[in-house]
C-alpha cells in the first residue's frame, strides 16, 4: 500500500514536474549558451557557478515548484474532498502524510540535483569555458537546494493548517521563505545548517500536529 501511495503522489505531481523540467532546461540552456527562446540571447558563462542566471533561475523555478507542490499535495486534495477518500483507507494518517512528504522532498531535491548536475556536467567538460572548474564550486547551489526544501515544507504546512483568511494561511509559507533566505545568505555552514535543521523540525512537527488534529 505504501507503493500505491507513492505512485499516486508521483502521478499527481507529474504535471508540475514536467513544468519544472522545462524551466530547468531553459536555465541550463541559457547558462551554457543555448537560447531556448528565439527572441532572447543566451549569455555564455565565463565563470560557471559564480554568478549569472543559474541562482535566480533556481530560486524562481524550483522555489515556485516547491511552493506549488506543497499546496498541490494538500490544499488541492482538500479542495476536491479527496481527503475523505484517502484518509479513510486503513492506514495510519501519519503514514499517508509521511509518504507525501517523503515523495515531495525527494522530488524537490532531485530536480535541484538535475539542474546542478546538468550545468556542472557541462562546466566539467573541457573546452567549454575559459575558467577552471571544481565540483566544490557547486556547494552554494546545493545549500540553496536545501533551502528550497524548507520552502516546500512551508507551503505544505500552509496547505494542511486550517485558517480562516488567505493571508494567515500563508504564514507558514512566509516562514519557510524567510528561513530559506537566511540559509542562502549565511556564508558559514555552522550557521546555515542549524537554521535549516531547526526550521525543518519545526515545520514537520507542525505538519504532523495539524494533520492529526484538524477538521477535514
Amino acid at each position, binding site marked *: *500500500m505504501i*507503493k*500505491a501511495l507513492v*505512485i*499516486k503522489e508521483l*502521478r*499527481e505531481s507529474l504535471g508540475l514536474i514536467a513544468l519544472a523540467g522545462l524551466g530547468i532546461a531553459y536555465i541550463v540552456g541559457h547558462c551554457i549558451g543555448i537560447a531556448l527562446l528565439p527572441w532572447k540571447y543566451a549569455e555564455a558563462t565565463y565563470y560557471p557557478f559564480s554568478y549569472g542566471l543559474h541562482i535566480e533561475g533556481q530560486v524562481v523555478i524550483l522555489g515556485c515548484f516547491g511552493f506549488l507542490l506543497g499546496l498541490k499535495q494538500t490544499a488541492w486534495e482538500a479542495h*476536491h*474532498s*479527496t*481527503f*475523505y*477518500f484517502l*484518509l*479513510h*483507507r*486503513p*492506514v*495510519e494518517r501519519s503514514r499517508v502524510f509521511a509518504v507525501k512528504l517523503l515523495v515531495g522532498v525527494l522530488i524537490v531535491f532531485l530536480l535541484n540535483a538535475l539542474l546542478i548536475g546538468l550545468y556542472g556536467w557541462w562546466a566539467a567538460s573541457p573546452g567549454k569555458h575559459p575558467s577552471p572548474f571544481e565540483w566544490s564550486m557547486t556547494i552554494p547551489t546545493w545549500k540553496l537546494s536545501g533551502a528550497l526544501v524548507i520552502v516546500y515544507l512551508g507551503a505544505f504546512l500552509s496547505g494542511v493548517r486550517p485558517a480562516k483568511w488567505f493571508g494567515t494561511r500563508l504564514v507558514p509559507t512566509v516562514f519557510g521563505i524567510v528561513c530559506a533566505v537566511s540559509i542562502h545568505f549565511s556564508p558559514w555552514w555552522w550557521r546555515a545548517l542549524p537554521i535549516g535543521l531547526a526550521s525543518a523540525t519545526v515545520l514537520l512537527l507542525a505538519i504532523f500536529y495539524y494533520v492529526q*488534529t*484538524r*477538521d*477535514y
Partner: protein
Amino acid sequence: MTMTDVIRTQRLTKHYGCHRVVDSLNLRVQQGQVYGFLGRNGAGKSTTIKMLLGMVQPDSGEAELLGEPVSKLRPETRERIAYIAEGHPLYNWMTVGEVVRFTRAFYSQWNTELVEQILDHFELSRKQKLRRLSNGQRAQVSLALAVAPEPELLILDDPTLGLDTVVRRDFLESLIQIIHRKGRTILFSSHILGDVERVADRIGILVDGVLRVDCPTDHFRASVKKLVLDFPGPAPEGFECPGLVNQWRTGSQLELVLVGYDDAQRTAVESLQPRNIEVVELNLEEAFIQYTRGRRRSLPLFATEGSDDQSTRDQGAA
C-alpha cells in the same frame, strides 16, 4: 436487547465558531440495522458523519465504531468500515481500473468478483477516466469500492445527492443487495424521503444539531398525524397541548399537527368541541416536513425496535 451497538456516540458536540452544529448527540445504531439519518440542510448530519469517521474532531463527547473509540481507530478496524463521503470524491485523474487497483492495495480482503460484477452491470470500462463519468456512474464506482472489502458497517453521506431518478433507483437496488448480506449495518443520510422509506428500518432526525427522533420508520409516520377540526363558528385561537407541532386557522377550520397522537391529546382536542374531527395519515415526507418545520421545538420521539406501541418520552417538550 442482546444486539450490539455498531455505532455509539455519547454527548457528541461540535461548534463552528459559536454556532453549535451538533449538540450532545447520543446516537446508537445496532448491528444489522439500516439507519436513515435525516435532517434539513445544516442540521449537522454531515458533521456528525465526519466526526464518526475521525475527519472532524468533536469539541466534547465520544464516538465509538465497532466498539472502538474513533479517535483511536486501528487500521484493522477501519478496514471493516466503508465510508462514502458526500459527492463521491475520487481521484479524477485515475481511470476506473486505476482507482480499483489503488484502493485494493490497502485491504487484506477484496471481493474482485463483486467489483467486476458491478462494473460490468453498469457497463463501465476499466479504461474510462473518472473525470469523464456521469454522476451516477461515479456513485456506482464509489459503491463498488466501498463494498469490495466486505465491510460490516457502511456509512454513506447522502449517496444519492444529485442523481436523477433512474440512476437513483439503480443505486438503491445496489444498496438493497448489500443489505441482503446478513448482519451488515448501514447508516445513510438522505434528502429523499421516499428512498429512506424504502430502505431504512429506522430513522433518526436531527433538528439544529439535536437528535429529536430516533425510532422505526413506520413508527415515526404513524406518530405524526394531522387533524382537521370543523367548528360551527370561527375556530378557537391559541390551542395548546403536549405534542402539538403546528397549527393553522382558516375560518371555521383548525388544522393541527400532533406528534404521538394519544388519548390525552384526543381529550384535549375534543374539549374544543369541534363539529367534526378528521384524522389524516401522512406519508413519510409529509410527516418529516411537518415535524421539522414546527415553530417550536417539536416533541422528541424515541422508541426501541420491537415496541411498536407508542412509547414517546415527553422529555424536553415545549
